[in-house]
């Protein structure tokens, strides 16, 4: 691709400074390149930063990357990998070339995200309330009642202003046509927002002049917005609610984020053993005695939340919590059982859900999804299994996903067998050629730093309190291995700062 074209258009004055690093960049043959169009000109939003990027020497990016990694390690901005020995901490590798979203694109995304999360929230309230959408057969009732995420215990819990989903992380990808599509909803305990804020902190420390010049929207307000949304959940009559964040503890993969958010919000970070329920009220054990808790931002799964109602062997939760919630003496975010809304099979019905509850067409399209519980769809998919992405409905974090064109014959045979054994446990989707972004990819044989296209996705965060609040930005994850489509931190992904332009 002719990057020189881009340079003559946006940065003629800096032509002389075009480094071999950028000149060597070759966009992906089929995927949508986020930075350059097919003619090699910068896309909307990038024109202002591109001149700076092109003039930035590769070594500078490399240096920023190394300094960022060191900063994250020293500050303990790490995640734990399950399956490794206890306490194995890794940093989430940081790529210093930011992803840019122009103001117009963002405005549309923001509207689409609010619309979607409002509909998902209405769905949760409905499923555990009157069940209208099931009675009207817009969503099949047996799909919900057999969902592994359906929690009978949630029936009858009425959170203030109907907020079951307080925090949502919606995974978006951009296909070859450049259109953003929803890939997955995360409305249980979505994580990653701390990296959004930390990545920004790194960029403002390392390239302050660039950040100032181009007008990027700030992400630092998120903890305050989250706290406001949580306080709005407090039982009526409580003017200064006591809010706490419930973590499974130091060995949880997202422990850093729990620490970070509680610190930023100035609330207690508690473990299950710090809490006790008495007389249908929730308390934490302090040096001065028991102190009542009004709102709990829980970062542990339903199954572990209350051993009285869910898994009796759980040591992480608080016995009796569900009865406190039912009595209305405390609220939790997110509510119990919200996982019915982010089930991968329910996903197929989300456009219908939006129409049903809001009377609107979905602003953000989803990826065509085939339910393997449907015999016709199953037959069609199994005929050409190597053309599809196969996803277990109950898993998250990229676990268990099989990408047909990249899978071995043996993997495909095994997947086929698993689908036939448990059809309801799988969905299939066509392979989305997800977009790529220029990314620092180590060093060439001659020692020069290399920039190459790598696949990326995007997780913006939506807060639903008395009013919706969307973080202007989000987590851009990048699959650092060449050709890989899996961006999860647990599977070799890294991240980039995401710049939403002010205008």
């Amino acid at each position, binding site marked *: 691709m002719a990057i020189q074209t881009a340079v003559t258009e946006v940065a003629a004055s800096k032509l002389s400074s075009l480094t071999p690093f950028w000149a060597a960049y070759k966009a992906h043959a089929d995927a949508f390149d986020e930075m350059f169009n097919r003619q090699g000109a910068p896309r909307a939003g990038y024109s202002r930063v591109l001149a700076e990027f092109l003039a930035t020497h590769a070594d500078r990016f490399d240096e920023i990357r190394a300094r960022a990694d060191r900063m994250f390690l*020293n*500050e*303990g901005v790490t995640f734990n990998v399950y399956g490794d020995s206890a306490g194995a901490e890794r940093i989430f590798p940081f790529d210093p070339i930011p992803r840019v979203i122009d103001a117009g694109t963002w405005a549309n995304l923001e509207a689409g995200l609010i619309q979607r999360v409002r509909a998902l929230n209405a769905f949760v309230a409905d499923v555990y309330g009157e069940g209208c959408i099931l009675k009207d057969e817009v969503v099949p009732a047996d799909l919900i009642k057999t969902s592994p995420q359906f929690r009978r215990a949630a029936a009858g819990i009425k959170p203030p202003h109907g907020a079951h989903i307080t925090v949502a992380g919606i995974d978006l990808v951009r296909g070859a046509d450049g259109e953003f599509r929803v890939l997955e909803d995360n409305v249980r305990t979505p994580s990653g927002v701390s990296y959004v804020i930390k990545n920004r902190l790194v960029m403002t420390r390392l390239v302050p002049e660039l950040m100032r010049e181009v007008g990027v929207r700030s992400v630092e307000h998120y903890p305050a917005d989250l706290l406001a949304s949580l306080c709005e959940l407090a039982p009526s009559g409580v003017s200064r609610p006591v809010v706490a964040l419930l973590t499974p*503890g130091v060995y949880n993969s997202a422990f850093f984020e729990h*620490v970070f958010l509680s610190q930023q919000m100035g609330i207690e970070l508690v473990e299950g053993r*710090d809490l006790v329920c008495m007389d249908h009220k929730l308390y*934490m*054990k302090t*040096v*001065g005695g028991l102190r009542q808790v009004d709102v709990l931002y829980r970062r542990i799964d339903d199954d572990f939340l209350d051993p009285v109602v869910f898994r009796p062997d759980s040591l992480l939760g608080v016995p009796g919590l569900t009865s406190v919630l039912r009595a209305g003496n405390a609220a939790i975010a997110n509510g119990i059982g919200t996982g019915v809304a982010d089930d991968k099979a329910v996903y197929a019905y989300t456009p219908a859900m939006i129409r049903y509850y809001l009377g609107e067409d979905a602003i953000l399209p989803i990826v065509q999804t085939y339910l393997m519980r449907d015999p016709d769809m199953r037959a069609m998919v199994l005929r050409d299994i190597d053309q599809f992405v196969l996803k277990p409905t109950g898993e998250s974090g990229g676990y268990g996903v099989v990408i047909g064109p990249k899978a071995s014959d043996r993997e495909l045979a095994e997947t086929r067998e698993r689908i036939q054994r448990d059809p309801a446990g799988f969905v299939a989707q066509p392979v989305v050629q997800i977009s790529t972004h220029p990314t620092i990819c180590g060093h060439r044989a001659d020692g020069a730093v290399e920039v190459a296209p790598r696949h990326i996705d995007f997780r913006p965060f939506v807060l639903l309190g008395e009013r919706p609040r969307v973080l202007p930005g989000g987590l851009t994850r990048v699959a650092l291995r060449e050709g890989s489509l899996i961006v999860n931190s647990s599977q070799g992904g890294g991240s980039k700062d995401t710049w939403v332009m002010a205008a």
Partner: protein
Amino acid sequence: MLRRIADHLFWMARYLERAEWRARLADVNYHLLVETPTKDPHPWAPLLAITGDGELFAKYYDAPSETDVLDFFTLQTRNPSSIVSCVNAARENARSLRHRLSSELWLEINTLYLDAQQWMPAVFDQQGVYAFFNELRNRFHRLSGISHATMPRDVEFDFMTLGTMLERAENVSRMLDSKYHYLLPRLEDVGGPIDRMQWAAVLRSASALEAYRRVYGNQIAVARVVEFLLFDEAFPRSARFAVDRLQAAVERIEHTAHSGEPAVFAADSPGGKLAFLLREGNAEAVIAAGLHEFLMEVQDLCADIGSVIFDKYLRFE
């Protein structure tokens, strides 16, 4: 404040203080060896006796050679009270409460921890024993400086003070005991030049030599060293100083917590007894009655205070 957080603060501070004293003990032993040549085939063995780790050491090693003792005492994670083990434990506690620590303090603890994971036995050859422990001691001083410069003086700081000062009182007494017991095998040396040099090394390892000289001049005598390290009101690593700070912190916590139970430092409690011993005692009397017995009593009282504090404020399960 959560009881669990109070517990983590207490133990974080306590393990850091313990690691620092370990570095000091290694340093004193090093100076003794350099300054008073010995025919002892295992001149590093006293370290094991002082800390009571001899048995565990014998499980893993044959003879207490310098290399093996330094390895065991400093680096071995199989030894739960090696310096690296203490640093790891302090950091693990810090990790659970890092939202309550200043980011400067967390960063310092975490980088010390990350560096400690890289230490290999060769580090003593590469840097030299003296330089290694000296640098380490400086890092502990920096940690203490950062916590004083960045942490609010509230009840959380008081719980850190509890951990630090309790460990300190215990370690001062242990270090004095070691000199009395193990480093002075021959009676005829008492008061002689070797004895004086050894006491000077003890003072130096507590960063106390200069402060001692300001009070007592050049004359190094056992009664004065004992007086200084046990009973001096102003020196920050004396047992008296530690107990004064401990009591002040406990009383602030009691005031905040309104527990209404008998105070930790009530007259007939372990706290009250320890405060009495260190405020009213003097070196001459203590040496006449038996220094070792006195030091053992100090250590026992420290352990008792620890369990009272645990029952009153830290137990949460």
